[in-house]
């Protein structure tokens, strides 16, 4: 694609919103925020939207579906954290407090769309439809991944930072070459935006005009390092501009705003308008993982201040205020969440030992003679151990 063709696309989008290309690419002046900390709908003038950045409120059904996933997500986070404390699980990077981002990420995608999550995005992966126990395989310590990415159209949760964004770009490029209208959501955190791969992924996606949405959950800390030590950019959303793509920032604890902003991004990407970068402002309420001591690097007051912005409470308040959530709905949703939690508990409590021969099974599509030999060696070793008992 030539530069003039790219320019043409941006012109098209900007004229669609009645703004200049520059205004289209720049994030709105303030983060998009539709409901306040208590769940009340903010006046239109205070939602952060401005010409070219107007976002409609999603439909009632979509909002209700989102809330249900939000409650399930919270329950999953709490259940898994408890399982780690009980020694049932090796490690769990909780997304407690970030559930709105997780849910919006999963719900904005269509059936054929792909998601590329990080290790902290288990709730998003479940909300996209992956079996919760399959998601937990990696944290339980059974295997380095637990589900089939092609079945669910979800990349394996990535432990190294940012590397998966380039894979997302590749999946999008393949889809484009085959003439499919697949959209790919590539997820990362604030720290990851400093990695070299972040630059390469954004630039490739922009140059090849690919339908990739880079969804940055800015939860303010990369383990112990605060955002202020990560970047001095006005916002992470501004990073998009240099690559020739649009950026937007949104309240990451406001499910209504998140769903609206991501829905539009998916629509624009699917229409062939190229990649977008969405930055969601949220907060990691718990430590990085159970091995981390967050009190070393952040103050209680800061954590408490974010409690008031809890995404679950805000969404509940909003739906109740709109008359979209009855007592019966709440009971049904709580039961669904409990079902998922008990499914996870049961799964974790049934102690399954992986077969040692699994070590050799999937290193190559065609095993090497050396591996066959090593596999026989281990089998012999284990059988002698068995005999010795």
């Amino acid at each position, binding site marked *: 694609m030539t530069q003039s063709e790219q320019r043409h696309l941006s012109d098209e989008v900007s004229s669609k919103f009645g703004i200049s290309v520059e205004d289209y690419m720049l994030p709105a002046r303030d983060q998009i925020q539709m409901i306040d900390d208590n769940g009340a709908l903010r006046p239109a003038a205070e939602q952060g939207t401005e010409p070219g950045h107007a976002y409609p409120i999603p439909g009632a059904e979509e909002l209700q579906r989102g809330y249900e996933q939000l409650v399930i997500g919270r329950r999953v986070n709490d259940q898994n954290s408890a399982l780690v404390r009980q020694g049932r699980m090796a490690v769990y990077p909780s997304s407690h407090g970030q559930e709105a981002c997780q849910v919006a990420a999963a719900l904005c995608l269509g059936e054929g769309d792909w998601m590329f999550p990080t290790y902290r995005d288990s709730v998003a992966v479940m909300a996209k439809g992956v079996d919760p126990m399959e998601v937990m395989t990696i944290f339980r310590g059974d295997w380095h991944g637990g589900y089939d990415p092609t079945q669910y159209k979800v990349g394996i949760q990535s432990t190294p930072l940012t590397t998966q964004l380039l894979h997302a770009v590749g999946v999008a490029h393949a889809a484009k070459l085959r003439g499919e209208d697949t959209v790919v959501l590539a997820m990362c955190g604030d720290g990851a935006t*400093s*990695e070299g791969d972040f630059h390469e992924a954004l630039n490739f996606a922009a140059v090849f005009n690919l339908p990739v949405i880079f969804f940055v959950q800015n939860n303010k800390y990369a383990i*112990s*390092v605060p955002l202020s*030590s990560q970047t001095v950019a006005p916002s992470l959303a501004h990073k998009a501009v240099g690559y020739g793509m649009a950026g937007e920032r949104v309240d990451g604890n406001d499910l209504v705003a998140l769903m609206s902003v991501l829905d539009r991004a998916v629509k624009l990407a699917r229409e062939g308008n190229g990649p977008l970068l969405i930055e969601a402002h949220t907060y990691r309420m718990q430590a990085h993982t159970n091995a981390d001591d967050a009190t*070393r690097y952040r103050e209680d007051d800061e954590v408490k201040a974010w409690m008031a912005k809890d995404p679950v409470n805000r969404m509940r308040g909003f739906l109740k205020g709109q008359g979209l959530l009855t007592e019966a709905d709440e009971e049904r949703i709580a039961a669904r969440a409990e079902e998922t939690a008990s499914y996870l508990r049961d799964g974790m409590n049934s102690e399954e030992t*992986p077969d040692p021969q*699994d070590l050799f099974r999937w290193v190559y599509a065609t095993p090497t003679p050396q*591996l066959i030999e090593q596999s026989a060696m281990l089998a012999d070793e284990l059988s002698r151990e068995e005999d010795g008992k």
Partner: protein
Amino acid sequence: MSIVTTSSEANGNVSAATARAAASAAASAPQPVTFAKALNTALRDAMNQDNAVTIFGEDVGVLGGVFRITDGLTAEFGKSRCFDTPLAESGIVGMALGMAMNGMRPVIEMQFDAFAYPAFEQVASHVAKMHNRTKGKLPLPMVIRIPYAGGIGGVEHHCDSSEAYYAHTPGLKVYTPATVTDAYRMLREAIDSPDPVVFLEPKKLYWSKDTVDLEALRLEHENKATPSMEGKAAIARPGTDATLIAYGPSVSTAMAAAEAAAAEGRSLEVIDVRSIVPFDDETICASVRRTGRAVVIAEAQGFASVASEIVARVQERCFHSLAAPVLRVTGFDVPFPAPKLEKYYLPSVDRILDTVDQLQWEENA
């Protein structure tokens, strides 16, 4: 946003003399110290001795590193001496190279073995080659600390044994300590080295303890009272029947195997390689010539590995003294497994003893 700051950050460096006086007041009789504490003390002492020593990486500041190896250094020396970088391994290594070019002695942390791979371009193409490319005009005194290997039930990309990549790259020195004393002494030596050192820290040893007088080690090091350890293997346990050659995380397993063999009447010598590059052919071959038999033990995958190199060198140099081929006990040639499968992968005492049994002993020849 709250960043914990301390008065010493505001004031800059604590004077070396003050810190040293405090350190010697604290150190009385030798006490049990952890491997992690020895590394932490080595960094502190090196910073006190030389203002050019600067530490940086991911989470090394206020948090003190995810393994707390840099604990307290920012508070003591200020943010200009020990600081967090943005999250970018290639950036950390590349910047360290530039700082070393311009008179500093950077000591950087890669947090976890497999997270150092994005920096491999900087390590292999630039750090390793700068001295050579500049015909010796530019020595590159820098230390790349990498917590490595398994045995801690870590998730993927947290347990790799990456020593072969570095050992295979000319221009890098590669050290890996296995004892608390060596942790201190080798890190101090790595920092003093005019060459870039990849300093591999076995994660599973961080919490191991030994009774060590760190203050005595400091004085020894700073007075150059002991010979250099670079390229010097240690005899970790003397023996007469066969030599077990190990390094880093495998030394303790080899020691346990030797202990078990002794109970069965077989005397095994254990060699701790310590410095992979440069490599100590002398100590190792002298041992193998004495015992006539050898097994090399390493956690890394065996194919094209450091263990392979050791076997080849011993075979080349000791052929006429050998009563049996030199054998290896290594990890399988598979990606480092998930926690629940780790025990089947790691070289175990039994696997070592089985291998020793295969060394063509007369009773079963």
